[in-house]
């Protein structure tokens, strides 16, 4: 019955291999044989003959156990492919809703929500310059806005990614919407994508809303609150993407991200949480640059380091906690405005690196992201790119197909050494929190950013269409940018005014006062009070204003 045993290329007498096969069979019910175009049967995994590579078990092992280098699940993409998680956010809540329903129909298996930049700044639509409203994301100020965004979307079935930086007001809105629909919070699954305040302080000031110390308090309150009330929500996604986009090398981005994750783990332990449990819900979010083999090696090395250091540093043994689950996004920095259709090719290569690196979830960029938030056509091509790689190119047939390559294994070891060097540097600084407070990390990233720019300027790093192969006649595929209709802007403001006038104002004031008191008290859970205020119909701006008052709104540290 077990097709894997038939014609297995390699001896399977070792315990590790048999364990892997048991795990694989348990995860894969569809035992259809896969053959390539020449009729050759393709096994799900290839590994060296018994005894031919003594270091194999220690350094690579089998997917889903041991060093985890080759993947965190026994079946990886042969069992279940990655989640297609496209970032979507445009215009009004009803526009978002219409768009997301189309995207779900075209094959996306999860949804992501990007709010308007005004929301990132903690401002409602009646407080911002009208020109800027709804140009980059959806205007979501209230529970009602969230309800419209999610109209007819089964939020108990679809995994949701929220670009919802600390203090997580969008998640609070979604939880209240779930209550209104009689959906238990235990049915809500997904991830707070922009929950890594350290990375925001360092490298993406877009999402930076509360002071560093204030954000730390709210973060820990949120993680403890969600662990108790929303058990299937990933409260923390540790983000390497911002740092790599800001100029960190792939090795630095991985090392710094792991250092941040260790910091969060230490903070959770200080709150009395059990690492065997809370680490099961840690996820990561990385950038995938076009440096193909470097990216594959980065992910393989990161997976191995995470599993090993969790055991060494925190004594973790739960295999679920050791899994390095990550979402990745193709790098926008690599895309060019010149000859923009070339970006389709770049995104495909980046996506391949992420897939062969063993990701769990992916966003592929639209080729027009150098011009604008992706428009509909390019967003469709971005999803099609994933489907082509999955179904036509056969990238999911074999687990860790580059494993065993002399180059890739050597590079994985070398990236590991480099990543560990970065982690040691941060340890010397007293951990990631202190290292960003002092500006040490910002300095590292700044130097790397300058070095890369220098390489492009001198032509040492060839960028097609930019410093080589230029084409002056090129005017291909420049997207036509559509800005929101100024008329609906007024509609949105009127809508908010109506919402405010119809709510129980005393209830709002009382809930905001409670939130203030909790924030001031230093004990008590700010996130519980924040959810209560959201339920009482306070807007996100009103809530964030209270927290900024009490916990501070620092300015990001600028290191030249």
């Amino acid at each position, binding site marked *: 019955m077990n097709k894997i045993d038939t014609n297995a290329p390699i001896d399977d007498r070792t315990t590790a291999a048999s364990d892997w096969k048991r795990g694989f069979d348990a995860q894969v019910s569809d035992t259809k044989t896969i053959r390539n175009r020449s009729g050759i049967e393709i096994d799900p995994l290839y590994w060296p003959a018994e005894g031919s590579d003594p270091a194999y078990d220690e350094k690579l092992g089998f997917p889903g156990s041991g060093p985890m280098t080759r993947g965190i699940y026994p079946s990886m993409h042969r069992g279940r492919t990655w989640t297609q998680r496209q970032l979507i956010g445009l215009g009004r809540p009803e526009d978002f809703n219409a768009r997301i329903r189309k995207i779900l129909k075209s094959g996306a298996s999860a949804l992501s929500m990007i709010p308007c930049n005004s929301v990132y700044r903690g401002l409602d639509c009646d407080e911002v310059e009208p020109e*800027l409203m709804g*140009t980059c994301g959806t205007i979501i100020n209230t529970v009602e806005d969230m309800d419209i965004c999610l109209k007819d979307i089964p939020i108990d079935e679809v995994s949701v990614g929220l670009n919802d930086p600390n203090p997580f007001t969008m998640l609070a809105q979604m939880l209240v919407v779930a209550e209104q629909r009689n959906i238990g919070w235990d049915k809500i699954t997904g991830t707070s994508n922009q929950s890594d305040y350290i990375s925001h302080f360092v490298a993406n000031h877009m999402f930076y809303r509360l002071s560093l110390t204030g954000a730390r308090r709210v973060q820990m309150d949120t993680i403890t609150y969600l662990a108790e009330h929303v058990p299937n929500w990933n409260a923390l996604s540790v983000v390497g993407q911002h740092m790599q986009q800001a100029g960190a090398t792939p090795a630095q981005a991985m090392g710094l991200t792991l250092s941040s994750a260790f910091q969060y783990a230490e903070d959770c332990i200080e709150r009395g949480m059990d690492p065997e449990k809370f680490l099961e819900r840690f996820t990561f979010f990385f950038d995938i640059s076009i440096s193909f083999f470097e990216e594959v090696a980065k992910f393989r090395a990161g997976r191995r380091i995470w599993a090993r250091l969790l055991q060494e540093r925190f004594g973790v043994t739960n295999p679920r906690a050791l899994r390095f689950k990550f979402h990745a996004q193709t790098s926008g920095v690599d895309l060019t405005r010149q000859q923009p259709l070339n970006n389709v090719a770049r995104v495909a290569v980046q996506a391949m690196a992420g897939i062969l690196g063993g990701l769990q979830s992916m966003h592929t960029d639209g080729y027009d992201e150098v011009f604008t938030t992706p428009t509909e056509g390019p967003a469709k091509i971005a999803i099609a790119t994933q489907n082509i790689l999955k179904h036509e190119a056969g990238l999911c047939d074999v687990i860790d197909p580059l494993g065993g390559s002399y180059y890739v294994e050597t590079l994985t070891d070398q990236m590991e050494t480099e990543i560990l060097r970065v982690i040691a540097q941060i340890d010397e600084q007293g951990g990631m929190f202190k290292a960003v407070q002092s500006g040490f990390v910002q300095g590292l990233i700044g130097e790397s*950013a300058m070095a890369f720019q220098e390489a492009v*300027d001198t032509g040492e790093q060839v960028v097609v269409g930019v410093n080589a192969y230029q084409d002056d006649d090129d005017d291909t595929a420049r997207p036509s*940018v559509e800005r929101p209709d100024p008329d609906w802007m007024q509609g949105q403001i009127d809508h908010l005014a109506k919402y405010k006038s119809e709510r129980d104002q005393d209830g709002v004031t009382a809930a905001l006062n409670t939130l203030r008191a909790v924030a001031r008290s230093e004990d008590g859970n700010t996130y519980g009070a924040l959810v209560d205020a959201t339920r009482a119909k306070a807007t996100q701006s009103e809530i964030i204003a209270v927290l900024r008052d009490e916990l501070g709104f620092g300015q990001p540290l600028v290191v*030249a």
Partner: protein
Amino acid sequence: MNQTATIPARVLVTKIGLDGHDRGSRIIAAFLRDAGMEVIYTNPWQKIETVVTLAMEEDVDVIGISSLATDHLLVPKLMVALKAANLGHIRVIVGGIVPDEEETDLLEAGVSKVFHPGSGREEIVVEVERLAREAAAERPED
């Protein structure tokens, strides 16, 4: 008049509006500084009034606005505010992600130059120095 060439150009590098992607503005600030200019750098999210005040107090020749997420749509308002403050001689450049049709709008509003991703360091430095000389030549006498 020739002596203006020996006075270093004074450039304000800033971001207005809501976006906080500041890798570009920091790199540009460092480039211009390394090229010998006097650079005043600010955090993102500046208000237009703040930029005007800063430009006046620091007596700058050029203002560089970095825009990665539609904040360039506010630049025409900045141009009006600069003129109203009698700072019409200051040259304004925009760098970042600006769609073609909106580049035309910016140039019509009085922006001197829009730099897109991929613009080279040398090109930017030369252009900023040229614009600074133009601005200095037009600066009204106190």
